């Protein structure tokens, strides 16, 4: 499949999900199918599934405040060596960087047990950026490489 792609001719797939928890699985399944067609290993597909699910959950919960009238957009772009996934919502985007979870602080209830989604996304994909563009909304852009130089 990747032999048919050039950077100038990226194939793309777009989804529009309601902001209802559970629908992130539709994006997960689609991303996994595309990654499999491109020849990604099972390990990388599992990494991508978790990253896409967490990005969609963040978009539904924090971006669109679980307002089911608002959609979360998911755009998958297939390149010869990369799969890019953008997850768009109507919010202002995350403030600050993903904090590394401190399990000791969590166990001592000094830090919320939740709040690991952005950390997992950053840890599991090769590239990630958070783009805030109010009032249009914001998006998370994630990329995995078929042949990463480092991982």
């Amino acid at each position, binding site marked *: 499949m990747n032999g048919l792609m050039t950077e100038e001719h990226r194939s793309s797939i777009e989804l529009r999900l309601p902001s*209802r*928890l*559970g*629908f*992130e*699985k539709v994006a997960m399944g689609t991303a996994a199918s595309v990654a499999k067609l491109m020849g990604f290993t099972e*390990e990388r597909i*599992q*990494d991508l599934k*978790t990253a896409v*699910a*967490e990005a969609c*959950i963040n978009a539904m919960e924090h971006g669109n405040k679980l307002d089911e009238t608002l959609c979360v957009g998911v755009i998958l772009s297939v390149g010869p060596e990369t799969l890019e996934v953008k997850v768009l919502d109507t919010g202002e985007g995350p403030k600050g960087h993903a904090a590394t*979870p*401190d*399990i*000791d602080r*969590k*166990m001592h*209830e000094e830090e*919320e*047990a*939740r*709040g*690991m*989604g952005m*950390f*997992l996304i950053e*840890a599991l994909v090769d590239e990630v950026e958070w783009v805030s563009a109010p009032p249009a909304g914001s998006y998370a852009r994630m990329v995995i490489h078929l042949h990463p130089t480092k991982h």
Partner: protein
Amino acid sequence: MQEKTTDVKMEEVQCGTGDPITVLRFAGDITSASKAAVLGTYQGIPESTKRILLDFSKVEYLNSSGIALVIQMMIAASKNGQTIQTFGLTPHFQKVFTMVGITKYTKLHADEKAACAAFLG
């Protein structure tokens, strides 16, 4: 479409000598909708129980909110002086649990036999 539910079965198993071990066998999805299933089931374990096994071998989907519930259960277990061993996680979620540091508070085992044996060692 609704989120898939979490099924949790609580069992007691005997492993070597000593008191039985309580096993929580999770199945389905573990997400933010699983609070009652995860923490509610844990609360049904007597405080006198000191050895708990978590079986994730039938879990189909686990996200960060679900992992947070597992951490909350571990906090409660720690307060009660209970030890938790874990088995049945896929290689991907073994990696995720390691990334977030949970392995500092519970060991991940390949199977139930190895997890039970860890209580004896």
